[in-house]
């Protein structure tokens, strides 16, 4: 996050603002519903990364102080604009709005020079300010437009709320596209097994007592191994190991995950749960030892065969557990 630390909008550190902006007609500007203080990270980054110069219209249409109000009216009509900065050379001296023109028209003073009717206390932006300043100014002063000066105080452009909204939309579109590409790439990387090492990697979440979905991880693992064209006897061994570990998590754990990595001569199944841990691992490895309750046994589980079965089908088997922590079981089957 790169905030513009020096002189945040509203801090007044670098740009002291008039407290009572001159009134004017047709100065209404729709506010920009973006806060420079909070909001999605992406948007905040954008309004501080983009500069006022990225949004402003340039070159700017301006009038000299001696021009008549009628000349300004024609300037507005021909260019379809509602406000015109007044400048001497490239120095900003004032601004006239359509409201000023209407007032002059009403008073019959259209031949008077602009300098007699313009607003002199002009609130301007600097071209290298972050766009956040523009949104803040628009929302605070409700003026239709803000002249933009460069570092040497030369008039270089003008900004309206629609300029700000347009530039933000373009930038947000670009940003969303970039994020979508990133998401798509991440999804593709997750969906397709990385062909780099020819291995298949699968991972599943297992929920306690979810007998509805018990066996699904194993079914998926079996399908993937079939897809690799492995020997049915080997697939059977892997299915036994993963099913027993999966059911152990459903029956005994507080939830966990089953992961399988297959290829390059071995199938490895790793079951990791969040506890509560096995107090006596040696006993749990003995056939017939079970801590399952009656209703689990009535379903045909809890016969004390799970871990022994998983070890029997594995070429390499390890279990790590203890009371108060999770259990991790690793089964490797070589081919």
């Amino acid at each position, binding site marked *: 996050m790169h905030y513009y630390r020096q002189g945040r909008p509203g801090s007044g550190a670098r740009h002291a603002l008039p407290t009572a902006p001159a009134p004017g007609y047709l100065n209404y500007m729709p506010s920009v519903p973006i806060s420079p203080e909070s909001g999605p990270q992406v948007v905040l980054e954008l309004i501080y990364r983009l500069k006022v110069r990225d949004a402003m219209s340039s070159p700017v249409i301006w009038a000299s102080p001696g021009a008549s109000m009628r000349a300004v009216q024609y300037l507005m009509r021909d260019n379809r604009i509602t406000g015109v900065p007044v400048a001497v050379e490239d120095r900003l001296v004032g601004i006239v709005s359509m409201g000023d023109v209407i007032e002059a028209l009403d008073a019959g003073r259209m031949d008077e020079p602009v300098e007699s009717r313009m607003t002199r206390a002009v609130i301007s932006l600097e071209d290298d300010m972050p766009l956040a300043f523009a949104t803040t100014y628009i929302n605070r002063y409700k003026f239709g437009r803000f002249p933009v000066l460069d570092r040497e105080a030369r008039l270089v452009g003008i900004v309206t709320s629609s300029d700000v909204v347009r530039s933000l939309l373009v930038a947000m579109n670009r940003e969303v596209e970039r994020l979508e590409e990133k998401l798509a790439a991440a999804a593709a990387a997750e969906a397709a097994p990385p062909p780099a090492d020819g291995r298949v990697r699968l991972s599943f979440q297992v929920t306690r007592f979810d*007998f*509805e979905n*018990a*066996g*699904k991880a*194993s*079914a998926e693992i*079996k399908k993937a191994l079939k897809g690799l064209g492995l020997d*049915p006897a080997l697939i*059977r061994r892997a*299915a*036994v190991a993963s*099913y*027993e570990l999966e*059911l152990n998590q459903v029956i005994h754990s507080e939830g966990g995950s089953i992961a399988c990595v297959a290829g390059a001569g071995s199938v490895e199944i790793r079951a990791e749960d969040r506890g509560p841990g096995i107090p006596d691992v040696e006993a749990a490895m003995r056939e017939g030892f079970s801590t399952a309750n009656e209703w689990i046994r009535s*379903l*045909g*589980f809890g*016969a004390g*065969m*799970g871990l022994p*079965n998983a070890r*029997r089908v594995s070429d390499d088997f390890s279990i790590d557990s203890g009371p108060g922590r999770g259990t991790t079981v690793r089964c490797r089957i070589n081919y």
Partner: protein
Amino acid sequence: MRTSELAGALGLEVLQGEFGDREISGGYTSDLLSDVMANAKDGAVLVTIQAHKNTVAVASLVGLAAVLVCNGREAPQDMLEAARAEGIAVLRSASTQFEVSGRLYAALAAQAPAGA
């Protein structure tokens, strides 16, 4: 004997009849799913009283052709739906596992050259 011939040969009720018809390789009788997982053979018929969805999960992982529910036990709808999705036949008998296993063994031995 093929899966489609089981019901007729053993006098069974067909609870789920959408399956891939195949040659029955043998049978296994157990109510412990870990035991089935460890010892039942691909293409076999499971004789059991465990009539629920998890039996189908095991049957699918092991590659069983059919689940034969004994003692006239009720088979829940979600079990039958899972079996349909996996293409595993679910059959039912009012007899015990002992009696059904005996009849199945005899029927397979009668026609298979190497026995069940």
